[in-house]
């Protein structure tokens, strides 16, 4: 038992400790970490007042909230529409899942070429209708990367909500039909509330992922134009490689880690609350009978 635990702790905590340790130092990639100067909380405080870092935080937050919200609305909407047995449905479902299986770098490249101002699919199509092209990766860059991410990750929410939908008690939905509920009322009063536990966890999982997104944006915009799509992961990697400030990059990573920790802990808390509630009910019933 004990050796295994020690190995696990070392394997997990050593890199983490290394990062925390580095974040307190003015650390340059050419130096050995122990040679670097200890600066205390300076890196954290500098970041706190750094407009570029703040901008990056805002971009990341905007990106994460927008993609998760859109993916939820579209994914759950699709699941609600396709939750029936029609011929060919299994083929359609497989098609929907395809984007998720493509490597993010490929997705980024694909969309970058589709967004190309002159030869890209979108602007060519717009022009064939006599419309002006859109500056996709220029002033609309954030929206464009959001669209690409939504395209890739909506299937994830779609699959999970479809599974949730299909495991709902059929007879409760039938009872609602008998009780006079229209399709819309069945969704609002029965299906969505019953799917809620799954949806909350799914949304949190996606939010955690969205905060860490890198490849697609790196390939599509490299964070530009300006800082308009420079999400945290990109900022961190640039700080470490271009600006050669490993200590600051480590501090940034720790800020991101704190955000992700809060999200993860709240996810566990929510599942825990649900489990506890179920256990309490079971006990209550047992005590009564």
């Amino acid at each position: 038992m004990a050796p295994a635990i020690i190995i696990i702790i070392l394997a997990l905590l050593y890199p983490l400790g290394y990062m925390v340790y580095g974040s307190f130092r003015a650390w340059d990639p050419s130096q050995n970490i122990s040679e670097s100067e200890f600066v205390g909380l300076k890196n954290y405080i500098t970041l706190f007042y750094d407009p570029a870092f703040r901008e990056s935080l805002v971009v990341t937050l905007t990106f994460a909230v927008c993609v998760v919200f859109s993916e939820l609305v579209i994914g759950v909407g699709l699941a609600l529409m396709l939750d029936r047995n029609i011929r060919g449905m299994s083929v359609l479902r497989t098609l929907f899942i395809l984007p998720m299986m493509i490597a993010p770098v490929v997705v980024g490249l694909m969309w970058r070429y589709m967004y190309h101002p002159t030869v890209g699919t979108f602007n060519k199509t717009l022009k064939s209708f006599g419309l002006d092209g859109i500056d996709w990766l220029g002033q609309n860059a954030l929206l464009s990367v959001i669209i690409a991410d939504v395209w890739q990750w909506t299937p994830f929410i779609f699959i999970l909500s479809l599974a949730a939908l299909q495991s709902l008690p059929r007879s409760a939905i039938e009872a609602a039909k008998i009780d006079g509920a229209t399709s819309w009322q069945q969704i609002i009063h029965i299906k969505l509330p019953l799917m809620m536990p799954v949806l909350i966890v799914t949304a949190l999982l996606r939010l955690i992922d969205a905060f860490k997104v890198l490849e697609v944006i790196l390939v599509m915009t490299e964070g530009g134009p300006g800082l308009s799509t420079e999400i945290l992961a990109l900022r961190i990697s640039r700080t470490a490689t271009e600006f050669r400030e490993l200590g600051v990059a480590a501090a940034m990573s720790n800020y991101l880690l704190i955000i992700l920790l809060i999200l993860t802990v709240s996810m566990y808390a929510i599942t825990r609350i649900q489990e506890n509630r179920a256990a309490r009910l079971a006990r209550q019933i047992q005590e009564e009978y």
Partner: protein
Amino acid sequence: MPKIRLEKLTKSYGTFKVLHGINLEIEENEFTVLVGPSGCGKSTTLRMIAGLETVTSGEIYFDNNPISHLEPKDRNLAMVFQDYALYPHMDVARNISFALRLQKLPKAEIENKVKQVAETVGLTNFLSRKPGALSGGQRQRVAMARALAKDSEVFLFDEPLSNLDAKLRGQMRAELAVMRQSVKKNMIYVTHDQIEAMTLADRIVVMNDGHIQQQGTPEMLFKKPANKFVAGFLGSPPMNFMDARIVEENDVLFAEGKEFKIAIPKKKAKSLKKYKGRVIIGIRPSDLIYDPKATSDRALDLRIVVSEYVGAQSVLMCACGDSDITVELKSETPIALGETLRFAVRSEGIHLFDSKTELAL
């Protein structure tokens, strides 16, 4: 004018036919029980009336209006499901009031109705509980209350008691019997349990293989089953069947089989005069009475194979020729396994069926 009418109702899943043209008329305020073994089409019939299954062909009429094109919500009915089908995220009060809230009734009216219905089914103290915190019997009551709250003209029950344990089932059955005295509604009740059918129904509809076998009052079906299936399905323990031949001796008809030869009562004999083929003779356990002194033309000699003690009565599995015969006997009667006892046959308890068509003769 019948309240509900099914006309040549059929249902197929692909090429598989589940219902073969059912015709049924249900009078106003009748408690109708559809009963049959699993897979006989009774639940499908009920779900088609509810609108939860589409109609393949034929038509359903409420008050002479065709309704099979209507959505369930437009049929004004209430239904109790086998697994109760409660809304797990709503407390009892909200479960009961769901339909009323959808109708946007005034709040006070809804509250009154919920209170009144909860009292009827004895749920007043549980209104703020979620279904997960209720026992099976209480959930059953919530399902009942929810149906009652709706004030529908037609009540549908899909095996509402089959998820309860035996004791609770008996209790709920009795409560249902009481409730139906006070609630005058059109009720259609599906069950595979013939005791529920016998105790609750004004009219029993026995189904098998997607056909209606017979319909009528419980008494009529019990006394005059139209065929061997109905005879064997209703009654507990079930009716005994033996292969026999009709023979005539000195103007008296006998049903003769291996190890028995029973005189057929005059009333029945008239219609059987011309019928000299093979028959199936059916006798209920309750029509076989232990009587060592009975004459052999009115009795069966049964060899006891198994004795099941169930309290005041014992149920004996016996052999007579090739047939297995079940009889009931007071438990204090001294018997030994392997012993042969004589049981008198009550003359009105003799049922005869054609051995090919299995129709009553």
